[in-house]
């Protein structure tokens, strides 16, 4: 892992067991300000468990988690299963974290859904829900944003827009971002570094490096071709973000 001056978060030798099954072992990772790190891995790879350990929701059975003093974490959960009988508007959803409605309006404005402030949460589309969850995470003025499958239930165009938004937020707040995805190709353009997880860390490095790693190919190999089309439209984006996936896609096609 690239040495960083002041890590916000350091995990060393993390291990987690449920009953007799070891779901995580030998997990080391470091996250520094401004860095985007993506966890990928198949279902059951321990991604959510690792996220919960980072968030402090679960205690590891072995290893240490050290967070920078006063670290503020903003968390965007994977999904929101709100009972239909609970009448809650997007604005009120945010007010659960921050009573000051002006701050809630500002957060909704930043994620582009201020017009939905009075809209019932259950009536929001997938992308709108993700933006509302992101807005709530922003209310914490986070040093570290933890995003669990941030583009879940969002169509391809919406995914691009959402990743751009996440990148803008990273630049504005200069925060670190830990993201979970089940597929590398969806996040290629949006991440600096990737950890491929399957109980242990199979491989890590730049998205380009990971996608060519034998361990990654073994886990995800057959799916590679499926997502190549997705990167055809990246020419609109910020050039530095674009090059990696475009290059990689061409190699994958070759």
């Amino acid at each position: 892992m690239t040495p960083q001056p002041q890590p916000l978060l350091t995990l060393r030798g993390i291990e987690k067991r449920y009953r007799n099954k070891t779901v995580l072992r030998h997990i080391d990772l470091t996250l520094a300000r401004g860095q985007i790190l993506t966890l990928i891995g198949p279902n059951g790879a321990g991604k959510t468990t690792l996220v919960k350990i980072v968030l402090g929701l679960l205690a590891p059975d072995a290893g240490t988690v050290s967070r920078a003093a006063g670290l503020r974490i903003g968390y965007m959960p994977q999904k929101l299963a709100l009972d239909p009988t609970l009448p809650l508007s997007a604005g009120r959803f945010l007010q659960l974290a921050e009573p000051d409605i002006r701050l809630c309006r500002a957060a909704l404005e930043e994620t582009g859904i201020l017009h939905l402030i009075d809209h019932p949460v259950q009536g929001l589309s997938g992308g709108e829900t993700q933006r509302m969850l992101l807005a709530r995470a922003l209310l914490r003025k986070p040093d570290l944003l933890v995003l669990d499958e941030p583009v879940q239930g969002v169509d391809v165009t919406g995914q691009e827009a959402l990743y751009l938004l996440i990148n803008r937020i990273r630049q504005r707040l200069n925060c670190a971002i830990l993201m979970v995805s089940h597929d590398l190709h969806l996040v290629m353009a949006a991440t600096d570094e990737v950890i491929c997880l399957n109980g242990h860390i199979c491989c890590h490095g730049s998205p380009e490096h990971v996608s060519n790693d034998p361990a990654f190919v073994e886990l995800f190999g057959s799916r590679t071709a499926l997502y190549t089309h997705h990167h055809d439209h990246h020419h609109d984006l910020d050039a530095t973000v674009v090059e990696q996936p475009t290059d990689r896609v061409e190699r994958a096609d070759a």
Partner: protein
Amino acid sequence: MPEFLVLALLAGLGVSLVTGPLGAFVVWRRMAYFGDTLAHGALLGMALSMWFTVAPTLAVALVCIALALLITALQQRRLLSTDTTLGILAHSALALGLVAITLIPGARADMEGLLFGDILAVTPAEVLTIWVTACLVATLLWKLWRPLLAITVHLDLAQVEGVAVARMTLALKLMLALVVAVAMKVVGVLLITALLIIPAAAARGLARNPESMVVMASAIGATAVAAGLGAAWLWNMPAGPAIVLSATLIFVLSLVFVPARLES
């Protein structure tokens, strides 16, 4: 109005004050079966109160609290699904309560009152107990409203944001145990859950936010109490079931008259 009817009305209104908000939480958090289990345990509480001659409300509240803690412990061990755990505890507690009451001489006569409520026989002391408990629970709800709502909307998110999740969940269960203990007087063991969920469900169509739903649920509960007591007085109906049926009627009216709801 005869005095017993005034007392019954006061008792019913005190109970509706808190069945509204707690019923809303039961509906939002899908805890209907949990409430039912506590309610069934209430019968065991009554049996114990007769056995040891302690105040019924206290005995019922204690048994309900013990049951709530037992459910939580069993859920955490994850041996069985929550559904099955609750099913076992609910019916075991009910059966145990029925057996225990049968074994106590002289207690058997009032079985109907225990199962279906005996609000028309409520004493001034009992009305006082109901109101003290209701005010206590209402104050707690007022103080803990935002964290309680936060854990209902998303548990992990609330915890990351610093809500004391375990303590809030426990507080909610304890309040529910207290409310079951006082609601038992009004509608009896078998109909407590109805008094919790039907007014809340009826309020859903009318409410724009959680607070208005809670207030409306209490208002609907109070209306149902008044209407049920009226029916009991006029047509000699059993009061507890008449109260529940009044709430059901309001629920059906809310379905008919409230415009199509926004659902997922």
